[in-house]
C-alpha cells in the first residue's frame, strides 16, 4: 500500500479540476435552478481559447510569460460564451417549464462541441497544448508535476477569492439573496438579471481556469473533453450538495480520490478482482453517487431545503 499517498495525490489533483468546473454548475444551479448542461463545453472552449492565444504568440516567448495571456484569452472566450448563452438562450426561457432550458443546454453543448470540431483548425484529433517546464518534484514518496501544482494553486486561489467575494462584497450578498428567493431579492432592489449574468460569468471564468489547467496538466486538448468533464463536474456538484460552492469543491475532491483509489485498489479486494482498474472507475464513482444520495440526499454539504416549486 505504499502507493497510497501517490494515489491520493493523483485523486486530489484530478478532483481539484472537477471541483473548479463544478463551481460553475453549482452557482448557476443555486441561482436559477438550471442544469447548465453546456458548462462542460464552456470549459472546453476555454482551453481552446487559451490554446489559440498561445499559437498566435511568438514562439520565442516563454511559457511563463504566455501563461497570463492564455488565461485571459481562455477566460474571455468562456465568459463570453457563458454570458451569451444566458442572455440569448436561457433568459427567454426563464419562466418556461424546466425541461425547455435543459434541452436548450443540450443543444448548446452539441453545437459548441461541433463548432470546435469543425472550425478550430485541425481539432478533429487531440491538439498539443504547451506544458510547464520543471518537475516532477518529489515530496516525500509523492511525485508532483508542475502542471499539478498550477492546478492545485489555481483551485485554492479561486476558492478563497470566490468565498471572500460572495461573503463580503455587495454583489456577493445580492447573489446569496437571489439564490434564497429571487422574487424577494428583486423587491429588495437587487437587479436579479445582473446577478444571474454574474453567476454565469464567474462559472465561465472558473471553467476557463480549469481549461487552462487541464491543458497544462495533460499537454493535450480535444474537442470532446467537455462532455466527460461536465458529467464529472455535475456529479461532483450533486455529491457536494448542489448550490453550495464549497460543496462543489469537496464533491470534486471526493470524486477524484474515489476514482483514483478505485482504479488502484478495488482489484485488491478479495472477490472483486474483476471489477477493478480504470475501466470500472467510473462505475464506482456512480455507485458512490447513489450511496451518497441514499444516505444524505441533500449532498455532503447541502442543506435540506424545502422544494421551491
Amino acid at each position, binding site marked *: 500500500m505504499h502507493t497510497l499517498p501517490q494515489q491520493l495525490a493523483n485523486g486530489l489533483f484530478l478532483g481539484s479540476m472537477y471541483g473548479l468546473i463544478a463551481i460553475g454548475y453549482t452557482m448557476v444551479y443555486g441561482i436559477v435552478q438550471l442544469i447548465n448542461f453546456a458548462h462542460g463545453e464552456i470549459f472546453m472552449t476555454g482551453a481552446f481559447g487559451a490554446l489559440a492565444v498561445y499559437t498566435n504568440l511568438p514562439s520565442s516567448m516563454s511559457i511563463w510569460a504566455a501563461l497570463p495571456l492564455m488565461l485571459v484569452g481562455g477566460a474571455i472566450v468562456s465568459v463570453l460564451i457563458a454570458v451569451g448563452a444566458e442572455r440569448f438562450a436561457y433568459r427567454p426561457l426563464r419562466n418556461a417549464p424546466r425541461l425547455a432550458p435543459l434541452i436548450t443546454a443540450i443543444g448548446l453543448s452539441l453545437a459548441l462541441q461541433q463548432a470546435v470540431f469543425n472550425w478550430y483548425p485541425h481539432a478533429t484529433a487531440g491538439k498539443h497544448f504547451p506544458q510547464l517546464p520543471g518537475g516532477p518534484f518529489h515530496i516525500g514518496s509523492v511525485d508532483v508535476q508542475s502542471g499539478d501544482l498550477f492546478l492545485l494553486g489555481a483551485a485554492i486561489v479561486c476558492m478563497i477569492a470566490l468565498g471572500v467575494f460572495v461573503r463580503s462584497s455587495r454583489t456577493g450578498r445580492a447573489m446569496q439573496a437571489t439564490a434564497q428567493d429571487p422574487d424577494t431579492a428583486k423587491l429588495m432592489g437587487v437587479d436579479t438579471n445582473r446577478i444571474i449574468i454574474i453567476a454565469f460569468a464567474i462559472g465561465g471564468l472558473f471553467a476557463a481556469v480549469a481549461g487552462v489547467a487541464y491543458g497544462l496538466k495533460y499537454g493535450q486538448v480535444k474537442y470532446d473533453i467537455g462532455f466527460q468533464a461536465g458529467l464529472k463536474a455535475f456529479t461532483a456538484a450533486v455529491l457536494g450538495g448542489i448550490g453550495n460552492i464549497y460543496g462543489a469543491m469537496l464533491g470534486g475532491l471526493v470524486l477524484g480520490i474515489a476514482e483514483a483509489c478505485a482504479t488502484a485498489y478495488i482489484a485488491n479486494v478479495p472477490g472483486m478482482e474483476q471489477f477493478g482498474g480504470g475501466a470500472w472507475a467510473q462505475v464506482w464513482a456512480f455507485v458512490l453517487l447513489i450511496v451518497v444520495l441514499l444516505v444524505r*440526499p441533500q449532498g455532503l454539504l447541502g442543506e435540506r431545503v424545502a422544494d421551491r416549486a
Partner: protein
Amino acid sequence: MTDLPIAAAEEAVAATATHGNRRTAPFIPLPLTAARATTLAGAVITIASTFMSWTYTTDFPGDLTVSGYPGGLQIMTLIGAILTGVVALGTFGLTGLRWLTPSRTNNGVLLLALATLGTTWYTVIDIAAKLGGLANLDPGGFVAFIGALVLFAGALALPLDRHPEEPADAEYYELGRAEGISAVVRGYAWLREARLHHSELRVPDARKLNRWLQRLVIVVVYALGLKILTFGLATDYSDIFIGYLIVLAVGVWGLSAGGLLKQFQQLTQHNKKFSSTVGVLTAIAYPFAQNNELWANLGASVLIVGTVALGLNIVVGLTGLLDLGYVAFLGVGAYTAALVSGSPFSIWSGTQFPFWAAALAGMGAACVFGVLIGAPTLRLRGDYLAIVTLGFGEIFRIIVRNLDGVSGPKVTNGPNGIAQIPDLSIFGYNLGDTHSVGSFTLGRFANYYLLMLVITIIVVLVFTRAADSRIGRSWIAIREDETAATAMGINGFRVKLVAFALGASLAGLAGTVFAHVTNSVVPDPYVFSGSVPPNSAFLLAAVVLGGMGTVSGPILGAALLYVIPQKLSFLSQYELFAFGIALILIMRFRPEGIIPNRRRQLEFHEDETPAPGNRPMGDDTVPATTAGA
C-alpha cells in the same frame, strides 16, 4: 391522431376565440381586383414556366433541360403554383372551390404563394450557384423567377388577416434599453402588427358533412399523405428534397391557415375509430406501396426510435421526470433479446426463446433496471434524477464492455458484442426471408417493419390507456405540481416509479426488435449524444420537437429527426452542429413542439394570445395530418 390532453380544453380555446376584431389589411396597396388578377397571373406564369427549360445542362439534379415536361424541382414549383392558384380561386369565391379556404382568409393564399416563391427561387438560385453564374439559366428559369415573384406580390396585395393594432400606449419591456429609442419602438410595433393572424377564424363545421363523405375524405387524405411521404423518400438529391420540404412545410402551413386542417381535425375527432383504423392501414400499406428494402429499413428504424421516444414520453411528457439516459433501457432490452436469441455468441447459445418470450424477457429486464435506478432516486428532488440517469446511461455502456470474462464476468461478450443474431420466426414465418404476398414482395426489412408496427400499436395503446387512467391523471398531476398532488393523496413516489418502470419496459420491448433487425448488439451505439439515433439526446429531442405528452408527436418528431438528416447529405459533418442549433431554436420559438399538447401550449404562451398564428420560418412545422402515414 389522438391528441390526448382533452378535447375539452381544445373546445374551450375555440369558444374563447374572439371574432369581433378581425382586422384585414394588404401589405401592398392595390385595388382588390388588381391584386387578385396579379395573383392569378403570377400563378399562370409560374405554371407555364415549369413546362419550359430552366437550364442548359443536365448537370443539375433532376434534369431541368426538357421543355414541355416538368421534372425534378420544377415539379415542386408546379405543385406549389397549382395549389396556390386553385386555393386563390376558391378564396376569391369561385363556386366549387370555395371549400379550399373554409375560413375565407387570404392568408392561406399568401403562404402558399410563399411556398411557391421559396421553392422556385431556391431552385433558380441553386442552379446559378451550383453551375456558376446566371448564365446557366435558360429563359424558363427567369420566367419562373419572375412568375413566382408576381404571384407573391399579388398575394401580398390581398387583404390579409392581421394581428389587432397595437395600443398607442403599449410598453415593450422585452426591448430592454432600446425602448428609449422611438424609431425602434415604432418599428417593433409595426412588426407586431404585420404578423398574420388566422388561428381564431371560424370555419364551417365539417362534421355536418355526409358520414360516408367524411370517411372518404379521411381515406383520401391518408392515402395522399402516404404518397407524399414516399415521394419525399424517393428524392435522390438533397436539392430536390429541400424544394420538397419548402413546399410541404410552408404549403401545409398555408392550408392550415385557410382552415382545412382544422376541419380535417374535426373529421378525425368525429370519426375517431375509423380514422385510426385508416391510419393503421396506411402504415401497413407503406411497405406495399414501394418495393424498396432501403425504405422499409428506414421505416423500421423510424418506428423503433419513434416507439422508444413514445416510451420516453410517458416519463418526460406525462410525468415530467428528466431522464437523460433512456437509451440504456433500449440497450438492456436489446442485450436481453440477444442473449436468448440463440446466437452462437451468447453465453446461452443453445437457448432460443420464441419471440413473445424474448420480448417479455427484454421488457422484464428493462423494467428491473428501471426500478433499480428509479427506487433510490425518485424520492429525491427532480434534478437528481437527471444526473443519475445520465450517469446510468454512461456506465451501462462501460459495464457491458467489461462483462467479457476478462475485466468482469462473461455475460455480454464485451466490446465484440453479440453477433449473428438469427432472424425471428413467428408462427413459421421467417422474418429474414423474402415473402410474396399476392403480387407484392416483402423483404427482410419490410417484415421487420410490419412487426415493429404491431409493437408500435401496442405501445400506443398502452400509452393512451395508461394516460387516460387514474394513474395517468396522477402522472399529469405530479408533473404540474408535485406538492399539490401529494397533498391530494397521490403517492408521488409510487406513481413516479410506475411511470419510470413502464417507460423503461417499453424501451426494452423496442430493444428486443432492434437487436434482431441489426443482427448484432454492440455497446457503442448507447451513448448520450451522437449523430445517429438512438441516443438519449436524440430521443429527448424527438419527444420535445414532436410535442410532449402526445401520441403522434414523438413518432413524428423521431421520423423528422431521422429522415431529414438522411436526405440532406450535404450537412454531413455539420449534422450534429445543425442538430444542436435546431434544438436551441425550437426551444426558443416553439417549445411546445409541432403537435402541441393543448395544456402545455397554454402553459408556454401564458402571456400571449393562445395558439400563435405566425410560426417562425425555418421551423419545419408539419401539423398532425402527415403523422399517420
